[in-house]
């Protein structure tokens, strides 16, 4: 029923944008718990765009992300990434979670090259150390290559996790509340870092969050989800100029967008 919303949003087309991710009437029913988690989700992500999905806890947004990542099969519908159906975890998908999930027996750089080690073995991982160092430098962790995670702060750990996500040069980034465990100051800063990285690599990103300002400041499109069954009820286009800055958080237009999303959530989320 909301099909076409995404299509209508092809928005401020910067010419060369084309669809990377295409979800067609994706539904998910957990039979055992008798939960209709997702109902007919249609979604198109354009290359180089940043989209967010926002909703209250339990609206199915994490389920949606898992289906997109190939970690969970949908009950119905299709998920296409770069023209191929997603039927399992894929190399061209990079993922990040709320927890940095660094492994304490590995140094920062060893954590970063872990995906390479899994895919191509130890030698290939070692060959990527130079690139990993550059990534760490990119996120401001130069000099921390050989430090163990316990010596890193929460923000530094998440930055290391960003590098680990980027080392395989994925086409799309799926972000599951990546900074929600951080304090607000760090979080704002990390969001700006994330924007810088995404813009720099022209990455296609999809963020799951329950923070409205975070979704608005980062995204080109914010999808508003409501629970039981999980549906996308509105796609809010964010027409703030890029690069976004933290000053925009107090701009009237920003406030208007936040209000619009909040009212949409209030109306539907708590019935």
């Amino acid at each position, binding site marked *: 029923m909301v099909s076409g919303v995404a299509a209508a949003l092809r928005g401020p087309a910067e010419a060369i944008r084309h669809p990377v991710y295409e979800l067609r009437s994706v539904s998910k029913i957990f039979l055992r718990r008798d939960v209709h988690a997702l109902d007919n989700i249609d979604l198109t992500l354009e290359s180089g765009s940043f989209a967010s999905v926002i909703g209250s806890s339990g609206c199915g947004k994490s389920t949606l992300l898992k289906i997109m990542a190939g*970690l969970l099969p949908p009950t119905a519908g299709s998920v296409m990434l770069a023209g191929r159906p997603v039927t399992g975890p894929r190399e061209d*998908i990079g993922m990040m979670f709320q927890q940095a*999930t660094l492994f304490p027996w590995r140094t920062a750089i060893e954590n970063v090259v872990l995906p390479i080690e899994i*895919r191509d073995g130890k030698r290939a991982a070692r060959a990527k150390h130079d690139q990993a160092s550059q990534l760490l430098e990119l996120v401001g962790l130069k000099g921390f290559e050989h430090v163990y995670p*316990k010596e890193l702060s929460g923000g530094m750990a998440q930055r290391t996790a960003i590098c680990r996500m980027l080392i395989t040069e994925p086409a799309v980034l799926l972000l599951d509340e990546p900074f929600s465990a951080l304090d607000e100051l760090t979080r704002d800063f990390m969001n700006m870092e994330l924007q810088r990285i995404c813009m720099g690599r022209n990455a296609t990103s999809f963020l799951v969050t329950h923070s409205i300002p975070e979704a608005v400041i980062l995204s080109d499109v914010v999808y508003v989800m409501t629970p039981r069954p999980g549906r996308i009820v509105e796609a809010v286009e964010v027409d703030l100029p890029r690069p976004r800055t933290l000053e925009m958080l107090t701009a009237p237009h920003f406030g208007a967008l936040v209000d619009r999303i909040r009212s949409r959530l209030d109306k539907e989320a708590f019935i």
Partner: protein
Amino acid sequence: MSTADFTSGRAPAAAETVWVEQVSLIDRIPRSVAMIGLFVAFVATWQMVTLLGLVSPILLPTPMETARDLVFVGTNLITGQYMLGALWITTKEVIYGFAIAIAIGFSLGVLVGETNFGERAVLPYLVAIDTMPKIAFAPLFVAWLGFDIASKVALAAFIATFPIVVGTAAGLHAADENARMLFRTMGATRLQTLIKMKLPTGLPHLFTGLKIGAVGVMAGAITGEFLGGGKGFGELIRVAASQLNTPRVFSLILYLSLLGLALFATVVWIQRRFVFWHKDRVLASDSD
């Protein structure tokens, strides 16, 4: 800036409001003093009890007698006489028993921790066996394997296996959902997930199992010797006890405890090398 002015205006009040954390007197005693003091107090009490004749000298020798016997047994061990041979036999039982317990315990632990089959079908039987008093199996092992060291090795291994199974299985379950999901997104195989993530994550649990097993393996070997004869240290203790040579029993136990300590220390040392990243990786004593 007003806040800064406010605080800086107040801060410099130097000596007048010094606030020191209170540490109770008993916690301020240096560790070496505390340990030696405790030992002296123990020996003094012991001396008093024997001196006042509260306990028959046959049941409890004086500290002096025990010390003399300690020297005697020590000399015997150092000069390589029959007691060293007995200690070597017990050492072999303990090492073989521990090695077998690690091999079987680890394999079963992986089976239980990693497969549904293991958890659903094997684990209930393991729990059932674990609840049995394992020492009661000693006569069976003697009947099956004879009076030589094999029966003692078997009992030692039997007792030490279970904590290692539990430690391994618990360790494999220790990895959190995020880590599992991360490995799935990286396209890791089951074996890769096991080796690169689940096993390292579970090492602290595994070592806890090993430490409990190291204690159990000693108990198993000595119990086996008590009940199944042989030529080990346990036999020396049994003979000394039957002759009411209590100083000898005491000193033999003390030297035996060195073996147990060495085994335990080895496990702790290995743990420290391999689980350097874990915060409570060693005994609480050397953290602070």
